[in-house]
């Protein structure tokens, strides 16, 4: 099997053909070649190797041309040698031919042609075709008639194409059994074994049937049957193709891809150098008044860090939403302000840090984009190394920031002696187990999350509830639901319920509760008390919990059960579950997941 491609009409044909046959490499890749038409005639360049190699070896991109054909080969007749590589020329160099298929009577034809004085350079079946064309042209003086006469003599299977010096603006092709398509652009026409050969240029294709041939020029094409010689009226098929898909690598959306990349981004965050973390730790340790800033998702990231610094390092470090920072923060030269931002270009966060700097504060930032404004303006930048996040909604970048802030809190705890080294080591072990746990949960739980999200896709109002460090997780998860599914979701501490919100509970409002592991006894029991309050009012509760062993019957309306995990990573795993829940709600509602309305990747306006 081989792949063929061809194009007529563009100026940079050698480039177009490069992409074309490289996309066909799956059909064969032991050797390849091109025939290009330029002002002086046909130029053939070919060699053994993959498309990239041959293009480099033969310096093919150097050639300018308005028409050409290209072939990538998978040897069937003849060894893998340069001579056996397509295209093949006629003795007089007036025809260059590429072919996919097997000419079954080639030996017989070759004998005859050799007797007539034709010189063969290869062991292939294909090479008879240019010589047959040359013979026929001598008799008919017409390229199309020569093709017809040649086709009459060929037995076997073929998708073939040729260019000829006699008609330097026309590309000819014909098919029997081997696949062949035309690509129809405005001022350019293509051929290909399949539409991968030209999909980057046009989605309009004409499917050539057996016993048909076509003549293409820049502005037109005609398809005829070579048995009946009648013109065939062919419909144009519009290929269903999303050029972004190949970049998404099998995922339907970047958001899902990035959710699935989280095991790797956690690993990357764990591999950020100790001394970088130590830099942040000493800044915080030295400052009298440390503060965290972020906005949107990163505000909730810093809010989570607020709990983590309190519980692991005994240090209260408030989180302030960047947009409120100037109005609220008592920043001074004794302050250290640490920001989190995926892009490092967020207007509100930059404004907050400018304000802090102007007041003489020290600054730091955790960012994903190297060289961004934030990374350049702060005293202590930390690159989280999460790789590009293309979906506008942040998932993997936020999780990586939480990991880095947790590492910072742990180190600070050791430094200020609120954590023993042993405890520190234990927590680090737990963090290291996170990637494996996320991968197995994504594998084994996606279906359950999808079913529940799909079932409740038309619910208009959600309450997201959590206590302690599960509260910022509830806030962040609710934000995911709002921004990607456009569904009202309100994050709230469980304790707030009985201070008014319970009045809202009825069949029109659903709740999601982030339940801590039962080993966190106080948090766990008080969270369950809130579940009971809602259920007592006939409210729906989806419980996300870790009680795999001892399922509590009918405690929740529905549940997503997770395997037991160490408490320090439990909220992070629940956040991943909530990302998927928002994602599946959005896809069930046919939302534009990767580019939701009213949101940009980095909000650079105030």
């Amino acid at each position: 099997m081989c792949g063929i491609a061809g194009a007529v009409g563009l100026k940079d044909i050698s480039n177009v053909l490069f992409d074309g046959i490289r996309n066909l490499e799956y059909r064969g890749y032991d050797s390849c070649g091109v025939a290009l038409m330029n002002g002086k005639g046909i130029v053939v360049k070919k060699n053994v190797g993959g498309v990239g190699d041959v293009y480099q070896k033969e310096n093919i991109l150097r050639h300018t041309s308005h028409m050409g054909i290209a072939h990538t080969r998978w040897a069937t007749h003849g060894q893998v040698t340069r001579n056996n590589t397509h295209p093949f020329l006629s003795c007089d160099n007036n025809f260059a031919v590429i072919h996919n298929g097997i000419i079954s009577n080639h030996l017989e034809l070759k004998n005859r042609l050799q007797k007539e004085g034709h010189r063969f350079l290869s062991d292939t079946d294909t090479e008879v075709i240019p010589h047959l064309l040359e013979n026929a042209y001598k008799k008919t003086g017409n390229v199309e008639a020569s093709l017809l006469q040649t086709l009459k003599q060929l037995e076997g299977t073929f998708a073939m194409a040729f260019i000829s010096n006699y008609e330097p603006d026309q590309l000819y092709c014909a098919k029997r059994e081997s696949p062949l398509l035309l690509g129809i652009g405005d001022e350019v026409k293509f051929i290909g074994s399949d539409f991968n050969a030209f999909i980057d240029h046009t989605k309009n294709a004409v499917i050539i049937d057996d016993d048909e041939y076509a003549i293409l020029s820049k502005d037109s094409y005609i398809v005829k049957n070579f048995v009946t010689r009648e013109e065939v009226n062919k419909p144009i098929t519009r290929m269903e193709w999303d050029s972004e898909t190949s970049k998404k690598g099998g995922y339907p959306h970047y958001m899902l891809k990035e959710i699935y990349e989280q095991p790797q981004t956690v690993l990357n965050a764990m591999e950020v150098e100790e001394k970088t973390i130590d830099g942040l730790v000493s800044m915080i340790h030295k400052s009298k008044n440390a503060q965290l800033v972020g906005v949107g998702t990163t505000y909730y990231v810093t809010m989570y860090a607020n709990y983590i610094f309190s519980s692991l390092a005994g240090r209260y470090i408030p989180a302030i939403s960047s947009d409120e920072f100037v109005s609220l923060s008592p920043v001074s030269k004794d302050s250290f302000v640490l920001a989190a931002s995926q892009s490092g270009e967020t207007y509100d966060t930059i404004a907050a840090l400018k304000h802090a700097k102007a007041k003489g504060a020290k600054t730091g930032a955790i960012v994903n984009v190297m060289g961004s404004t934030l990374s350049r303006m702060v005293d202590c930048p930390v690159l989280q190394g999460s790789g590009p996040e293309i979906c506008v909604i942040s998932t993997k970048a936020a999780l990586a920031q939480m990991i880095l802030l947790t590492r910072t809190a742990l180190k600070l705890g050791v430094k200020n002696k609120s954590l023993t080294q042993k405890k520190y080591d234990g927590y680090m072990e737990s963090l290291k187990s996170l990637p494996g746990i996320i991968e197995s949960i994504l594998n084994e739980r996606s279906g359950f999350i999808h079913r529940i999200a799909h079932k409740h896709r038309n619910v208009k109002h959600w309450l997201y509830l959590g206590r302690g460090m599960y509260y910022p997780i509830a806030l962040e998860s609710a934000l995911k639901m709002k921004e990607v599914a456009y569904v009202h979701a309100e994050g709230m501490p469980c304790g707030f319920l009985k201070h008014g919100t319970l009045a809202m509970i009825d069949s029109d409002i659903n709740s999601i509760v982030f339940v801590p592991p039962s080993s966190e006894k106080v948090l766990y029991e008080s969270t369950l008390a809130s579940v009971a309050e809602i259920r007592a009012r006939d409210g729906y509760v989806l419980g996300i919990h870790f009680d795999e062993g001892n399922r509590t019957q009918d405690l929740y309306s529905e549940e997503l059960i997770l395997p037991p995990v160490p408490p320090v990573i439990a909220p992070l795993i629940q956040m991943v579950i909530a990302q998927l829940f928002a994602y599946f709600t959005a896809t069930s509602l046919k939302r534009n997941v990767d580019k939701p309305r009213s949101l940009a990747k980095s909000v650079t306006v105030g």
Partner: protein
Amino acid sequence: MKAVILAAGKGDNLKPFTDTRPNPMISVAGKYLFDHSLDLLQKAGINDIFVVVGHQKDKLVEQVGEHVHNGLNLQYVVQKRAGGIGDAVLAVKDKILPGEYFLLIYGDIMTAENIFSKTQQSFHAFKGPVASICLPPSNEMFGNVFLNANMNITKIIEKPKGDDLGNYVLSGVYILPESFFGLLEKNNRSMEKAIKALVMDEGLRASMWEDEWLDVVYPWEILRANKIIMDSWERSEISKTVTLEANVTISGTVHIEDDVIIKAGAVLEGPCSIGKGCYIGNNSLIRSYTALGDNCSVGYGVELKNCVVQKNSHIGRLSFIGDSVLGENVDIGAGTMTVNRKLDWSTIKVKHQKKSKDTGILKLGAFIGDDVVIGAGNSIEPGTIVPPGKVLPAHYSVPNK
């Protein structure tokens, strides 16, 4: 790329309809399942298609024959050795060249959006073997896959018992290399084992499918397949040879084909499809998700709702057919009622292969095989299967002694 459609299976679970036809020859929303697949293949740029036939092959071969001129190069291959999916795949072994990749499709799956195009696009990115995966309504009937972030399948668990796994599952669409035939031969012609061997050897990447997907296994799933297709319709199509008498009311999306006659007072609530040459009697009510095959007739005052009727069937006056599937040449007498719910609103069970199977559905009528004749005045219990050719006498409250 060549496509291979597997259509040789017996489809035992789809009785009574597969007693007389292969799965892909069931018509929903006005087209055979097979033709829905061909439409999608054509739009995915596939023009060489091999259909592996076996069970009831003559009907499919005849249908394949009709498609040669539709821009598609269709050929059928007879599965000589009866056996599993692996045997069916091996039937096309000599059609695929060394080094070539082919698109493999299980004949009983259906989607409204183009799963073949999506899978090909993933192949375009991976340039290696690809399996389409999806999230099914339940995991226990399928191959559950484990993935890493690069979409490499690392493990497959076939048909897990219980409800512990909520994985993506193999959706019955693959792009496989020619070397896969060798893996099948080495692995006792078992598809499951050969796929696992491929995962270990060359690797198998996944392509996630997120739109509606259905494996048409049980007869009530024919109704679901019908709904999936009708929900994807964007506009109505009414042939110019249709006769519409006075006071015919049409709403929603409808497909009405050539030479249909709709008598005065009929109401059509889309989505619904009416095949060529159908007759819709006076004052009949055709409610949403009804699909009538070619040349059916519907008598005066009949109500049809969410039902799929194959071609040449006749529904007598003042009948109600709802949440039901009817075969070809079915003759329903006047005043027949398919009761479609239990008195207590419990889910409907269907007696299937001698076992009672809970469908989980609250409203379901009957499944009536080809050539069945039902006399006037019968009422049919929810979930009843009537085998092909059965004749049920009329039900008289006042018999002629």
